[in-house]
């Protein structure tokens, strides 16, 4: 099954259908559209080409080139507990876009290539302006989700533009934002994750092709959930998206991010940067369900996922909540962080990381307490099965001025079988003696008695494992918006298939 590669539309559909029946990776189909690639490899010309394709202002190109110069001097980090073949950065395409999105960009979603739209339909992503994501039974009133769909290197379209505009909310691809609101992008890009932050962030700064841009004006509660759906389709292509969200004073927004990729034998690189700027009394809730193709049982193929996500709580009482469900990718390297600069600002991090078969996940968070009375909370649930390795890596840092700062960390690991591993690496720095840090960690195994109890009541083994694991993850699942909670729950079950018996 796993070495079946979809070549054209019909086959791809068959593969998808079979996959969905067998319950394995459901999103492994590929879409047969004509793709326009930049030449293979990376050099200054590629950086110029990307900037040119996006018709960017001059300063943006300069910024990219600067990043590229720095990147050339940098070395790939090796401290994470992940092991993968060396990436040949010259053997990757840095830009791929469907031809239909090229010369004349579709003016509205109605003009987008039906094949692209069909891809999103198959993935269950609503690009029609319908009220809800597919699969949700009972709506609680009218809930709407606006979607920005990113396909390989370009944004295909963004829904609910009109309604959002009325509320004063800007939600568009970052390439469009560079044209329509260059001053906003210029003011904030790189202000949370500086160009030279780390190897992958610097690479992203040089070659990012698209991503989402969100601006919530002062005092505005965003009238609907915003979401971006990333899809890698083209072979051998890296995806480097850049997301920038700004919440002005007293505003709030809930943003969801989803990702999938076709099933391919060759590993693919994904290196994203997400920057959140949160001003006084503003609040951002950022949720991710990451379901990139994880590779097969033997560790062949899959996405290498190196992501830098950071929130800067610049104003007093600013609040950020990161929630992530990480089920996919062959390798995950990701530490959504909170800089708690404003007094009384708050950061929360809720995470479920599942690693099955040969998957490796090294993920966690950083809570940097700079302001007084800042509060942070970390709830991490790591699940390992098969031969997978799952590491929680977290830093809680209380700076000298962070008087009365508080952190609570709870870090639970669950092992399924005896060939997998769970590791917890907490770093704690306290430079203010009124600050308090609490850390609790547990490691447990899925209990045979629990499984037997469930099975005696009629559940099969996989259902029983899914139930017990979902129970283990409950606190985090509850932190997700309703639409994602159900999807995430199902995903937990799917990702653990084949982990028992």
């Amino acid at each position, binding site marked *: 099954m796993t070495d079946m590669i979809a070549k054209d539309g019909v086959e791809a559909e068959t593969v998808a259908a079979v996959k969905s029946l067998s319950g394995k990776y459901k999103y492994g189909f590929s879409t047969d559209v004509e793709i326009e690639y930049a030449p293979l490899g990376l050099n200054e010309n590629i950086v110029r080409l990307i900037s040119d394709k996006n018709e960017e202002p001059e300063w943006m190109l300069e910024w990219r080139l600067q990043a590229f110069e720095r990147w050339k001097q940098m070395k790939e980090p090796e401290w994470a507990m992940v092991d993968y073949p060396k990436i040949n950065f010259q053997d990757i395409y840095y830009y791929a876009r469907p031809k239909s999105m090229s010369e004349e960009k579709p003016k509205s979603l109605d003009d987008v290539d039906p094949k692209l739209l069909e891809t999103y339909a198959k993935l269950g992503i609503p690009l029609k302006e319908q009220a809800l994501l597919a699969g949700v039974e009972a709506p609680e009133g009218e809930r709407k989700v606006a979607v920005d769909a990113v396909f390989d290197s370009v944004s295909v379209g963004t829904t609910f533009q009109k309604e959002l505009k009325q509320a004063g909310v800007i939600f568009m691809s970052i390439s469009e934002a560079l044209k329509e609101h260059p001053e906003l992008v210029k003011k904030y890009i790189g202000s949370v994750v500086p160009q030279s932050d780390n190897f992958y962030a610097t690479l992203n700064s040089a070659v990012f092709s698209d991503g989402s841009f969100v601006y919530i004006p002062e005092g505005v509660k965003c009238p609907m959930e915003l979401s971006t759906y990333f899809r890698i389709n083209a072979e051998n292509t890296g995806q480097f998206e850049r997301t920038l969200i700004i919440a002005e004073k007293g505003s709030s927004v809930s943003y969801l991010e989803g990702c999938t990729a076709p099933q391919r034998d060759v590993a693919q690189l994904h290196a994203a940067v997400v920057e959140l700027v949160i001003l006084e009394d503003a609040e951002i809730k950022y949720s991710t369900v990451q379901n990139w193709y994880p590779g097969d049982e033997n560790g062949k193929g899959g996405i290498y996922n190196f992501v830098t996500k950071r929130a800067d709580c610049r104003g007093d009482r600013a609040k950020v909540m990161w929630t992530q469900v990480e089920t996919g990718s062959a390798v995950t390297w990701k530490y959504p962080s909170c800089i708690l600069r404003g007094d009384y600002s708050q950061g929360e991090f809720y995470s479920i990381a599942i690693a099955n078969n040969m998957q490796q996940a090294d993920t966690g968070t950083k809570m940097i307490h700079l302001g007084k009375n800042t509060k942070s909370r970390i709830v991490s649930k790591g699940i390992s099965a098969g031969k997978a390795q799952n590491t929680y890596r977290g830093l809680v840092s209380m700076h000298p001025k962070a008087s009365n700062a508080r952190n609570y960390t709870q870090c639970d690991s669950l092992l399924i079988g005896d060939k997998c591993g769970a590791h917890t690496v907490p770093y704690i720095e306290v430079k203010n003696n009124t600050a308090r840090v609490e850390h609790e960690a547990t490691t447990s195994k899925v209990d045979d008695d629990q499984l*037997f109890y469930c099975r*005696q*009541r*009629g*559940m099969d083994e996989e*259902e029983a494992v899914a*139930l*017990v694991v979902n*129970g283990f993850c409950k606190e985090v699942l509850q932190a997700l918006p309703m639409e994602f909670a159900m999807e995430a729950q199902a995903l937990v079950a799917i990702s653990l298939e084949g982990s028992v018996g």
Partner: protein
Amino acid sequence: MLSIKNLQVGLEEEDKQILKGINLEIGEGEVHAIMGPNGSGKSTTSYVLAGKDGYKVTAGSAELYGNDLLDMNPEERAAAGLFLAFQYPVEIPGVGNMTFLRTAVNAQRKARGEEELSAGQFLKIVREKAKSLKIDADMLKRPVNVGFSGGEKKRNEILQMAMLEPKMCVLDETDSGLDVDAMKLVAEGVNALRDGKRSFLVITHYQRLLDHIKPDVVHIMADGRIIKSGGPELALEVEENGYADILAEVA
């Protein structure tokens, strides 16, 4: 309906024989009780019937309505109609009692090729049954058995049994740890399920429960064997004199 013949069982990990040839025939609608000293093999019998890992059947058979139980996995046995009320019900953190029940009910319905219950249908039935067992809404929402008192856990087992409507109910010391009122509730719960077809195997140490649930047959188990069977009066005899006389009688 339940037919156990010469069932011999040892441990998988070590060389230890626990059941040394159990014979038991329970007919449709009958209630049988098993009594016996600690460690005689009562719980082991119930676990082996339900398909728990760690035991090795070395001889004999167990059939439910002619189906070979020993050849099925635990969930197949459950779907075939076997229910075990555990001596020590297991806690499952984070999983709501109601979610657990619904998943179980629907898993069995699916396995039997029946339609799954909708959320609404399920809720209606569960509320009704919970009420008669004095299980309040809060207990239905809480995680399965977590923080439940001993008595609450046992009542919860009976609720599961009522919801799953099994053909053959095995109750392992469901009366232990219950106060007088709770005992009555549990007994009423069991009696409400007696419909002339459903059969029960009640493992207990006390005559008290058998006052409420009248058994047709009482068996005495000792050292992995059923050493004596009789009518309800056998339980009274145990209550009065303990096992010494019976053990001496067969020795």
